[in-house]
């Protein structure tokens, strides 16, 4: 038991040891993803295709930054919950505000453009 304890201690005293090559790979991937999202605009994709591509590249980039660069992938579940549960309130707020915006838009159309 004592031996096991010391072993864990050595591991714990050197947190987040990953080879530099891992960071370089993620960096390259972020570069490629950024280039892809720029290409969405450069080639002028429109409509649903544009929005889907923008969101896919955005979430991939955000995920890579949070999980690898910010080391969240190696944090404990309690920390992940601390960070991912509160933003659910934001998602609900976005849903509420988009429905609000629709209502304001319709009200404006009715009152501005109807004699």
């Amino acid at each position, binding site marked *: 038991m004592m031996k096991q304890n010391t072993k864990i201690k050595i591991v714990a005293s050197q947190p987040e040891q990953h080879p530099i090559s891992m960071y370089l790979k993620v960096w390259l991937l972020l570069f490629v993803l950024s280039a892809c999202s720029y290409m969405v605009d450069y080639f002028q994709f429109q409509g649903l295709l544009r929005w889907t591509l923008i969101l896919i590249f955005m979430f991939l980039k955000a995920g890579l*930054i949070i999980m690898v660069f910010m080391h969240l992938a190696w944090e*404990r579940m309690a920390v992940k919950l601390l960070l991912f549960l509160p933003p659910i309130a934001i998602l609900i707020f976005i849903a509420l505000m988009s429905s609000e915006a629709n209502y304001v838009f319709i009200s404006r159309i009715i009152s501005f453009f109807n004699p």
Partner: protein
Amino acid sequence: MPNDDHQEDHKTNNKVSSASSWQSVVNDWSADKQSFDMPWGKLMMWIFLLSDTFIFSIFLTSYMNVRMSATVAWPNPSEVFALTIAGHHIPLVLIAIMTFILITSSGTMAMAVNYAYQGNKKKTVYLMLATALLGASFIGMQAFEWTKLIVEEGIRPWGNPMGANQFGAAFFMITGFHGLHVSAGVIYLTVIARRINQGKYDEKGYHIVEITGLYWHFVDLVWVFIFAFFYLW
């Protein structure tokens, strides 16, 4: 750290019962000790970043709200932020360069954190200074962009010649607040790099580099969302 042994005990316990990560949450919260097994400065940075997430989300949500409810067409960002370089009209080119610079600075920061934990002080300081320098160049480009938009295009927070009046307010508020974060990050990085160079963390350990890194990566993270929602959408 005074409670180091205590933490190690806790770690051992969890190693034994780490069959499910949900069980580890229960263990962390029910153990008779601190719930989050990390330096307090790091936890406080995470909580600060969580609150900052809410601030930026509220900005982006209000931007969504005014853009959806505007009866006048929204100015096309692809055109507004286009530059003519050597006779070529390239859409969004400066924003793309700014994005690449910020990602590169995130990469150098991640490497600084890695070298700090390896105990390589010199490389850590240089990489942090490189990160700060890239951040400063980002701010420089943003200043150029703002100047062009205000002086040449005539965009104001209350109106602009291209379309919906709310464009300027949303643009200056969101990118301005992000630029303020980058500026603060450049100062923060420089101060910490200087203190590391002076050997102020030789005794305490280099967790400070990871804490600074969390802040810097967050600034990059926010830019990912601004880039997607404001410039590309």
